[in-house]
């Protein structure tokens, strides 16, 4: 759903590194090099970021859409 706070296996803090990782990989950098520069050495922590999918963004789209419709309806009734 959302990036886990810590590595499942060793307990290293990885939550705060996700946004930088995702941004830099999207910019076209090599994922392995980004992980190295973030200081994530062990493969247990590396897979946390490599294999993560931020599904919460997909879920939130439904709520954003509902909110938009609610606003639109309010606008219509006010007329």
């Amino acid at each position, binding site marked *: 759903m959302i990036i886990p*706070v810590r590595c499942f296996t060793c307990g290293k803090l990885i939550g705060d590194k996700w946004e930088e990782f995702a941004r830099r990989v999207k910019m076209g950098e090599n994922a392995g090099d980004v992980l190295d520069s973030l200081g994530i050495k062990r493969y247990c922590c590396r897979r946390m970021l490599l294999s993560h999918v931020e599904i919460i963004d997909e879920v939130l789209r439904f709520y954003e859409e509902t909110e938009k419709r609610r606003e639109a309806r309010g606008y219509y009734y006010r007329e």
Partner: protein
Amino acid sequence: MEIEVLEKDDKNIRLLVRGVDTPFMNALRRNILAEVPCMAIDEVVIIENSSVLHDEIIAHRLGLIPLKTDLESYNLPEECSCKSEFGCNLCRVTLTLDREAKDGTVTVYSGELVSENPNITPVSDKIPIIKLAKGQKLRLEAYARLGKGKIHAKWQPVSMCAYKHMPQIKIDAKNCDACGRCVEICPKKVLAKNGDKIEIRDLLACTLCQDCVDVCPKEPPAIEVGWEKNTFIFNLESTGVLPPERILEEALKILDKNLEEFAKQIEVQKT
């Protein structure tokens, strides 16, 4: 016992320890993992939560956030003089969070947790706690307390704590013809070829995998990998709650205390 610091920064420490045996190193490691106390959120009162995650998931995420620990000012709740289930100012810290997504989707970060004690704050301000869509609200009160790793892994002050034997590589110069196969196969690149000789480049990186011995075409092999008895390389990586040298110090103090207690128990049994 002789200790040499090989590497050190604000989160990691690497030591070379000479003249101790395996049981001692293991006792030290297990004490660091299970007995050194640190701060973590333990109880959460959710006042309002209209986000997409359940209360329990948010509470769990909050619990895993490492908090900077002040061992001098706080007591373990079970040893605190207040003897209260709810804790007092000496064994509990309250953190609050109040956030509403007013315009558009927002991410709530650990930096938005307001602590009653400015010294007890999350190690990093950039840990996402949750994402809120427009109109969603999250209000909660969290209680952090000291605890030990043996109760829950969130109270472990380290994310890595391990020791290994000091490797010892012997190359028989007379038998070796420097074919270079051992240099190629070594996964940690410990060896290097220098002219017609094989040299050790980085001894500490050796994992004692013996691949170089197996690949050597000579019979018996011209390379021998062993380890020094009673010499260890000790690695420690803190989660940031306490500086690594402080963790070691605390672990030794606790080990001393437990051993004293053990000796006392033996005395009681005898009489």
